[in-house]
């Protein structure tokens, strides 16, 4: 019961989802729409576990006065204030949470990703030393694509943008498609193993 019920549910859901894909009948489409709503509801409950976990971790840090507990206070404050503002005033275009989103979340996220440019540059310096033919190819391709995307590339040679575009759409696409076939077959095989109950790692312990 403790293992067969979840395994059976997983099997039934998997088979139903595969079957509904091939059926254009309105009942099948309605069934799919209903299941999507159900998935959203179930996932929302899973969020509670996540929020509880992060909150408890920071509350524990504050309670025990662990090093950096002051930052945990800021995390909890930011969490509570944003959540309360969002729940009370809604998420409309003029709601306070939109101001927080546009002026805190978006700039912080963009800046976090933008500083990766510096780390990628330093990583590239170490990785791109042209020691082998393969590394040289990688270096040249990256160099051409980068130059082809900035005005200075066009200024050096008007051919740079078109060569960069060709590199992205022909050899890059070919390599990506080759990898994609393998990834797709891997996903399908793993999904089948889960549906058929061969892959049971998600059941956790032996009980």
């Amino acid at each position, binding site marked *: 019961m*403790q293992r067969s*019920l*979840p395994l059976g*549910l*997983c099997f039934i*859901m*998997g088979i139903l989802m595969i079957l509904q*894909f091939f059926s254009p009948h309105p009942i099948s489409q309605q069934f799919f729409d209903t299941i999507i*709503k*159900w998935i959203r*509801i179930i996932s*929302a*409950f899973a969020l*509670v*576990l996540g929020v509880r976990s992060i909150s408890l971790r920071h509350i524990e840090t504050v309670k025990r006065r662990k090093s*950096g507990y002051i930052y945990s206070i*800021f*995390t909890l404050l*930011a*969490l509570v*204030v*944003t*959540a309360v503002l*969002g729940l009370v005033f809604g*998420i409309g275009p003029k709601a306070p949470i939109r101001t927080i989103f*546009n*002026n805190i979340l978006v*700039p*912080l996220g*963009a*800046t976090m990703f*933008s*500083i990766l*440019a510096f780390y990628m*540059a330093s990583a*590239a310096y170490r990785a791109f030393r042209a020691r082998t033919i*393969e*590394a040289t190819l*990688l*270096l040249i*391709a*990256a160099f051409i*694509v980068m130059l082809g995307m900035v005005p200075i590339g066009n200024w050096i040679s008007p051919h740079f943008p078109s060569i*960069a575009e060709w590199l992205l759409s022909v*050899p890059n696409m*070919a*390599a*990506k*498609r*080759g990898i994609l*076939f393998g*990834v*797709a*077959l891997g*996903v*399908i095989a793993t*999904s089948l193993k*889960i*549906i058929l109950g061969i892959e049971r790692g998600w*059941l956790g312990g032996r009980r």
Partner: protein
Amino acid sequence: MNISLDIWTWISAILTLFIFSFLYGDNPFYKFAEHIFVGVSVGYTIAITWHNFLYPDLIVPVFKQGNLINLIPAFLGVLYFSVFFKNLSWMIRIPIGFLLGYGSGVAIPAIFQANIIRQIQGSLLTPKILERKDLLIGSIISLFGIISTIIYFFFSREQKGVSKILAKCGIVFLMIGFGASFGFTVMARVSLLLGRLQFLLRDWLGLIK
């Protein structure tokens, strides 16, 4: 110089500088901004989940329209909390099984269609492509690249003779592909960096137009 007087622009600018301070090394300013980011992200997710999913999909149908069928996913969702009770903790497998079954079932035909059928269609030398000389060479190179890349990843037999040569060609395509992808990603990050610098110099300090 036309410094912004908007309090939110100042907050954005200061938090941006705090994040940039990580380039010097880990420091209290960066940690502060990082923790604020985590807190706001979680708070925002809570609000979005309530207003976009729980309220319209559960509260309205059940309490305002009397559609009790939506209590089934709510019951499945509540089973997540069984993890807090030792004797009932196995029940958490039920919603996980439901989600995994859904995800796997949806993934099989969708991935097969999008990542295999469509990609094969896009790689084939169709009569349309054979008629267009400007696309023909690129398409032949692309098809050769795909076949040689797949052969490079074929480990079931020892690669020797023709397959070894093709596998070597596959490495060439892979390296050019990785290089091009890397260059593209770097430029995307640089674009983000320029956006942040533009915000600091234009929107905050008013130094550029």
